[in-house]
């Protein structure tokens, strides 16, 4: 679905440190400025309210990470930094163990999916081959299938072959649904690559390997990094597919799902808030450095 592709590209564009413009397409002309009228405030006011609405649960989660709660974290009992300082202290570190598992799974699935997806993206943009539409369909379907079907399907497969569910089955599952998103994200980057640059490399007697390593790969790198971050985010927050393929292994989302009935410890809020702050900082740095770069280029040229 190009929608998914588009959404993926936008998310990826936010992570890219340069040239998100090419990924998002050329800019449309600016609207003609209008005279001020009372109705011109409606949209901005609506947007502010909409953003507040979107951020409410995030603020709630963040605030309750400072709650001096006992077992469950439902009513406010006073402010404390304790939960941030002793994240792993609760339940013999069960939260931290789940978090560590999620990181390991996310990293491995991301590395594998990014390699496989990048290879496919290069092949799709650069080469003609048979069964092209079949391959496109195969890449599109995982994004259009409800997660519960993907999860149940893999679980049925593992059951049929007697594969025990553990960390490996989760990684296999996550890699599967990340590949298509990597392809969509990297493909935009490959398509925007100027072939003249590689040609120049060949003209200067670079071997195909040298041209790839010194020209193609560095140019693709921002797209690849964006795809990797997107995959990691997808893997890290996945619950539905994980739930079907994890056996007794705990991941961070699964820990929250299982604890939901008896109350989530505030430590889970701490971890989620820390991850949130880290991700937002990453995106903001990328955005601001991109804006600075744009300004510099505008000044020079």
């Amino acid at each position, binding site marked *: 679905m190009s929608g998914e592709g588009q959404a993926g590209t936008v998310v990826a564009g936010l992570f890219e440190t340069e040239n998100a413009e090419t990924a998002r397409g050329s800019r449309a002309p600016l609207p003609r400025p209008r005279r001020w009228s009372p109705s011109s405030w409606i949209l901005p006011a609506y947007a502010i309210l909409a953003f507040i609405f979107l951020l409410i649960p995030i603020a709630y989660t963040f605030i309750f990470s400072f709650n001096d709660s006992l077992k469950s974290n439902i009513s406010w009992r006073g402010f404390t930094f304790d939960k941030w300082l002793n994240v792993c202290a609760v339940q013999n570190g069960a939260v931290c163990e789940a978090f560590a598992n999620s990181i390991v799974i996310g990293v491995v699935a991301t590395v594998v999916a990014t390699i496989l997806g990048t290879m496919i993206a290069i092949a799709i943009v650069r080469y003609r081959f048979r069964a092209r539409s079949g391959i496109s369909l195969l890449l599109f379907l995982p994004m259009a299938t409800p997660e519960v*079907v993907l999860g149940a399907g893999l679980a049925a497969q593992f*059951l049929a072959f007697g594969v025990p569910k553990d960390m490996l089955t989760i990684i296999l599952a996550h890699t599967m649904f990340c590949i298509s998103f990597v392809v969509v994200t990297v493909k935009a980057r490959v398509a925007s690559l100027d072939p003249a640059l590689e040609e120049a490399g060949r003209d200067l007697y670079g071997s195909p390997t040298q041209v790839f390593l010194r020209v193609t790969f560095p140019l693709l790198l921002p797209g690849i990094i964006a795809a990797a971050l997107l995959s990691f985010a997808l893997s890290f927050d996945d619950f539905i597919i994980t739930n079907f393929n994890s056996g007794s292994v705990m991941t961070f989302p699964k820990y929250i799902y299982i604890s939901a009935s008896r109350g989530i410890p505030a430590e889970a809020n701490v971890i989620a808030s820390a991850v949130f702050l880290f991700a937002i900082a990453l995106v903001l740095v990328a955005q601001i450095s991109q804006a600075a770069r744009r300004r510099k280029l505008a000044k020079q040229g």
Partner: protein
Amino acid sequence: MAFAAFSSTSVVAEPAPRKKSRIALFLLLPGILYLVLFFLTPLVSLVLTSLQAPREFGDIGQYDYAFNWQNYVQVVDAYWPHILRSFGYALAATVFALAFSYPLAYFIGVKARRWPLLQSLMLVLVIAPFFISFLLRTLAWKQLLSDESFVITSLKALSLMAPDAHFTGTPAAVIFGLTYNFIPFMTLPLFTTLERLDTRYLEAGSDLYASPFQVFRKVTIPLSMPGIVAGTLLTFIPAAGDYVNASRDFLGGADTQMIGNVIEANFLVLQNYPAAAALSIILMAVILVIVGVYVKRSGTEELL
């Protein structure tokens, strides 16, 4: 849709056919093989599992391959309310998410065009919910809208809600949760089409004496159709299969269970794998039919 993006590519390099196709094969083979092994064959496994019959004198959870199509009749018979409910909730959530996102995406994509940094920052805010756990977000709403919460007690004090009424555990709460959780999936594709909207068309419309509403209906909406189609599908498909929002520990109650909850319960708790598999196949088949009809109707086949 995505595969438009996949198939419409400009092939830049001149062909040196044999060597090139070997490189293409080397690049494609590992990834495609992976998807065949872990996406395609599981779907086949799912179909086979959905036709299994219980093993004679076997334990719970033991099944043999058969052609027991009766499974489908049984699950539809037992769970048709869940199936209908899933699509009803998903449809409602999609409509609400579209109504919420369109003005927002229009503001970011069209009105904020002259301030690229502001535009980027607003996009970060739209996807910010992605960076905090989906489950914690939903639980936050559960607490914020529980019977003792400020919102609900105020509504009751203002007599806008019956004193003995609840919000969590009702269909409205599940639809609310689905809407909230999938709003970024609606806003982003809408933004990507509205960002490219050429506002000179809108000016042309009003120069031809169309009212602002007519311009919106006859120019803006048709031009943003690709985004509307992509966004609604991106919201509808995951919403129809979701089981977190409807789960009793989250926003749902006893009579809000969706098809995903039934699949989860049958697969992971009751070990009734054939029933879970049959329901999954039904879910996927209905979604593919809806997607096909919808894309055809909205005249956006070229997206496919």
